[in-house]
């Protein structure tokens, strides 16, 4: 199986960043690309949902939500004890790694699509369900939201009505209502361009990953070890949960991708507001500078291999 070009675009972005090239994706374009990715993921899921009736979603949803609440409770003590990291920073790491990365999920979808492996249509719903709980737990762990009383409700509003959940859920809903035929006329933009858009997005992610790696100078060894070793057990648990709740091999792999991925949009913004004394570049360097590349190069194939072995798909 040859190397996926979208990952090469990430590599090109990293190279440009390291070489201090003047290449820049303007913020407006980055916004456009991420809006398109979120809508596409939602629309795809919605169309699939409108096709196939979906039994037992409630039980599955509870299992996935539980995962989102429990993950940070394991990550936090690990970061505290093993990593000897302060309370706020450990709580922030727990929020980042308990939550999920849409970009990693998109690469996972591209990975499966290239191999003609199908996945359960409810995965985008799980993506939504996994985004919030870990952030809530992370804030509670930091026990610092008290200082500015209004912060808590503001943060919750910002996560729940933040654009990523809004566009995912909106896309799901539109895809579900409109169905395959209704969506057909907008497919050329949202579906046909998906991988190209993902390629450009990853080019920018490469640039960002480099620019967000400054914490490596100070906390290098810990961050690299943490960023590489954390996703594997989390991802494996994700795959196993997927298997337990009856997902297909593709679906279990994607749940593994979600579990093993670390948030780099919702969690940093929420932590910055609610836990201001956490060092933002620590978590961001780990999730964006280490775990994101690890997952798209190495993690995703591993999660799929585990899923294929456990579920017996292919």
């Amino acid at each position, binding site marked *: 199986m040859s190397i996926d070009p979208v990952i090469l675009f990430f590599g090109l972005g990293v190279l440009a960043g390291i070489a201090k090239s003047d290449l*820049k*994706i303007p*913020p407006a374009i*980055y916004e456009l690309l991420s809006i398109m990715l979120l809508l596409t993921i939602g629309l795809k899921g919605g169309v699939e949902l409108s096709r196939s009736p979906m039994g037992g979603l409630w039980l599955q949803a509870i299992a996935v939500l539980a995962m989102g609440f429990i993950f940070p409770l394991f990550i936090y003590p690990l970061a505290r004890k093993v990593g000897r990291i302060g309370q706020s920073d450990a709580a922030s790491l727990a929020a980042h790694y308990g939550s999920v990365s849409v970009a990693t999920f998109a690469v996972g979808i591209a990975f499966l699509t290239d191999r003609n492996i199908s996945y359960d249509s409810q995965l985008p719903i799980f993506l939504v369900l996994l985004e919030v709980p870990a952030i809530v737990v992370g804030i509670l762990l930091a026990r610092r939201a008290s200082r*500015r009383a209004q912060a808590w409700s*503001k943060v919750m509003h910002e996560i729940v009505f933040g654009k990523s959940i809004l566009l995912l859920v909106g896309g799901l809903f539109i895809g579900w209502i409109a169905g395959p035929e209704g969506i057909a006329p907008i497919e050329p933009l949202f579906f046909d361009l998906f991988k190209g858009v993902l390629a450009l997005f990853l080019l920018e992610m490469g*640039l*960002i990953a480099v*620019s*967000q790696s*400054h914490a490596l100078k100070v906390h290098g060894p810990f961050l690299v070890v943490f960023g590489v070793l954390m996703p594997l057990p989390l991802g494996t648990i994700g795959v196993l949960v997927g298997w337990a709740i009856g997902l297909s091999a593709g679906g279990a792999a994607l749940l593994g991708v979600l579990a093993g991925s670390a948030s780099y949009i919702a969690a*940093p*913004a929420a932590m*910055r*507001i609610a836990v*201001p*004394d956490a060092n*933002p*570049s620590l978590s*961001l360097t780990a999730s964006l500078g280490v775990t994101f590349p690890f997952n798209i190069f190495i993690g995703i194939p591993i999660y799929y291999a585990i899923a294929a072995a456990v579920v017996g798909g292919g």
Partner: protein
Amino acid sequence: MTDASRKLVTIVTEAILEVEICTAVESLGATGYTVTNARGSGSRGVRDAGWSTDSNVRIEVICSAELARRIENHMQKFYYENYAMVLFETDVSVLRPEKFS
């Protein structure tokens, strides 16, 4: 100018705080504010507009000397410790002074 002197308070800080600070400034009594996007470098490192949690805004408030002091105290109390922030004050004269403070 039917000269009337006021203070111009300029705050350069993290973009993520924009809404919060503008709300605070107004509830402290300011009649308005002006915001521009910015990037920069300071004690908390380089902050470049490429990536939203990493860019700055530049917030300007025209107000009385007394309100300026209150805004500065508020910023000092709630943001100085944990956020990238610089604040400076300039003497300006304005038209229609009744419009400010």
